[in-house]
């Protein structure tokens, strides 16, 4: 059984997915003396109060024409993060989990691609194309589509809405709710943590779960909590941007998804060793 194969199913409709999560995150930000987050009090200072109505291009002594001085806050950046590019021993397959973004500090185009290659064929893949916008200091909201492709099964398209960012105590969170054809809904959640053993040796626990709103027999996915994967990877950062790792990944399936597995003569859970590369540029 493969981690990526399991994009299991659920319960939660679109609104249920995103907004409560936002509220919870916002509340977490409110903690501790209001040093972070929150909303501006009514008497908060006007940041333009000292401008006398002048702007960067209007008013006395402004340079003629359009504004010439543009700093990095108006500059677009990009990055590609190969979070997991790994060989999974038991299933003899290669898994990729890559994120890329292009944009500014607060608005960016995001691609999240996961896939599973066995015997030289792309068995399954799931690709999110999202527009990300800053929700608060640490989280972005993301809106877009997800395209699921199955070598054996039926491809699915979804509308996606989620939040991604850094939660208190340094947990990287990524929670997305999906709405598909025929009233299909899904929710997927992922959490990662980085434990620095030394400056370069880093232990990364990781958990991912998927829920679906109704059964998808064609793809072997049952409604409710479909699957949970928990992994532990140990990487060595030759540079911050280049780090090979080894690890172990445990996965389990539940409900109808587990039943589909059993019917197909597959294991409902497994544990396997992985070896891979994490990189970004």
């Amino acid at each position, binding site marked *: 059984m493969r981690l990526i194969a399991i994009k299991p199913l659920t319960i939660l409709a679109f609104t249920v997915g995103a907004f409560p999560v936002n509220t919870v995150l916002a509340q977490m930000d409110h903690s501790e003396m209001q*040093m972070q987050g929150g909303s501006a009090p009514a008497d908060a200072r006007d*940041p333009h109060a*000292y*401008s006398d109505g002048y702007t960067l291009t209007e008013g*006395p002594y402004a340079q003629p024409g359009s504004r010439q001085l543009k700093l990095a806050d108006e500059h677009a950046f990009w990055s590609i993060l190969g979070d997991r590019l790994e060989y999974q021993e038991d299933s003899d397959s290669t898994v990729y989990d890559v994120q890329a973004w292009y944009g500014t500090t607060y608005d960016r185009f995001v691609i999240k691609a996961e896939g599973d290659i066995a015997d030289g064929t792309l068995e399954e893949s799931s690709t999110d194309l999202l527009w990300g916008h800053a929700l*608060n200091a640490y989280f972005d909201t993301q809106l877009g589509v997800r395209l699921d492709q199955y070598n054996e099964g039926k491809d699915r398209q979804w509308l996606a809405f989620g939040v991604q960012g850094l939660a208190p*105590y340094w947990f990287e969170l990524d929670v997305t709710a999906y709405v598909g054809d025929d009233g299909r809904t899904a929710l997927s959640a992922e959490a990662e943590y980085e434990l620095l053993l030394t400056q370069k040796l880093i232990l990364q626990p990781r958990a991912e779960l998927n829920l679906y709103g109704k059964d998808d027999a064609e793809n072997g996915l049952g409604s409710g909590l479909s699957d949970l994967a928990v992994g532990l990877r140990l990487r060595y950062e030759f540079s911050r941007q280049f780090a090979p790792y080894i690890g172990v990944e445990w996965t389990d399936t539940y409900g109808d998804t587990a039943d589909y597995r059993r019917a197909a003569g597959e294991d409902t859970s497994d544990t396997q060793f992985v070896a891979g590369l994490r990189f970004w540029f």
Partner: protein
Amino acid sequence: MTHGFPRPKQPWQLSRRRFVQGLAAGGVLAATPSWLQAAAKGATALGSAPVLSGREIDLVIAATPVDFTGVTRMATTINGSIPAPTLRLREGDDVTIRVTNRLPVSTSIHWHGILLPYQMDGVPGISYPGIAPGETFVYRFTLRQSGTYWYHSHSGFQEMTGMYGALIIEPRAGERHRADQDYVVQLSDWTDEDPMHTFSKLKVQSDVYNFNQPTFFDFTADVSKMGLQAALEKRQMWNQMRMNPTDLADLSAATLTFLMNGTTPAGNWSGLFQRGDRVRLRFINAASNSFYDVRIPGLKLTVIQADGQDVEPVTVDEFRFGPGETYDVMVEPQDDAYTIFAQSMERSGYARGTLSVRQGLTAPVPEPDSPEWLTMKDMMGAMGGGAMGHDMMKMDSMGQTKMDHSQMSGGMAMDHSMHGMQQGSENPLAKPSSTIHHARTEYGASVDQRVDTPSTNLDDPGIGLRNLSQRGLRPQGHRVLTLADLKSIDGVLDDRRPPARELELHLTGNMERYSWSFDGLEFGKSTPVSLRHNERVRIILQNDTMMTHPMHLHGMWSELETAQGELRVRRHTIPVQPAQRISYLTTPHDLGRWAWHCHLLFHMDAGMFREVVVS
């Protein structure tokens, strides 16, 4: 943004030692083009940069190959040297400085700390359009001040790739302090990477150059030392708030090579003296991203000037200064050799040179201190720190205060008379307001924390420099300069009017997104701060971040005052510590538009930049 640099080799392709120490003979590569020789004619040696003087100066900006670490890189240089030529000019002179751009991109030169017409200030997009490729721009202005200053590019990241030099203006009336030797000690930092690439990496992972992060084994060590409960408590606030207690600098020796007068630590810049000489050292922090903690083991440093303006001499053992700041110190060496040791604030490395009686001598080079974690005081200001922190601070300031009194007994009486002049408590603006007003734009995604209990004292030497003697890191009685020790000499602070109004701005940022701003608004979203010509105005800066920001206001002085409203010292660049609230007065005598920004180059470029209109 400046592009056009060769894609860098990764740091790990270089041997570690060579990268940190640099090449002994590192610097600008030999073959000097003929146009450059012409420009540098008449140069004499002072420090390692040629000296140009007179009323007419020609500067040529070009790409020049350099090798500081064993790999060749293209630098942007002024007259082919790093640092650029030292300009020795004379107070009262009308100077003409012709700057020719031989780069493929636009360039500029800003005269840091110099009062002049705004069109001559050299900030592209604010003062003028910049200097286009192939073009020559003629700067003409009258020197209305004297002292130690510097000049640098204000375009993209050109300053970081070599465009900085010393600017010394000799006083008409002669120097106040006699010196037998007079050296510029210009500290800077060099990266083999394209700075734009470096910046982009910070946008992706802002701690990418921090190799001093809290680790699991630090935690277990703390558990065995202080118990589980205490070890957890020590980390609680930081982890909950997603703040890193070792976030002392954005860059480190992981990408930087620290330079003294354009010379690597291995290259060991040397200044010569004869026994009995009084030696003046003009320290200039021309680094793009590094605060330096400077000391000369075995020598007392008598600070006589800050930012080019004379101060009442104050004798210390060590001082910290950030990009943009300058300190002139007098030393009286008696031994054969002394090390000038300038460790970077995050302690990943150092710049180093030697004062000696003859070339080739060296003195022992200290090890950099262990980096210290930021404290609750650095996060929360006055309310932070708890019992232990408070005690330590008290001890610290008491020690400093005692020394102040004994050394400045004359100054005390004068202070009292000045209080009288400021209309005392009648004027609501006699003291800077202590009520904190966060801007409404500080509650959004651009700001990762706000401080509600800022510290206002000026006598904190800052993280890594507190209680050094008590902790056994320096000899007993070791004194570190603080802002509280600096006092302009009589007559410097000539505008004694109380401020007619008060502006409050907060220094803000989001480390995770690597964004820096005033009041949560990056430059592109900001509007100018409008000042009236010749008004006396107070500016309050509150630092809502955990980093120290050297704030540089162009075109007018920043005259620092205490929290009690006592005017202290005239600066052009004022370092604002984490969770600190400081204030200064200014009188804008020159009309026009001016830049106001953090002088950490990446913070400026990320948006901690405002325009000021004087009309």
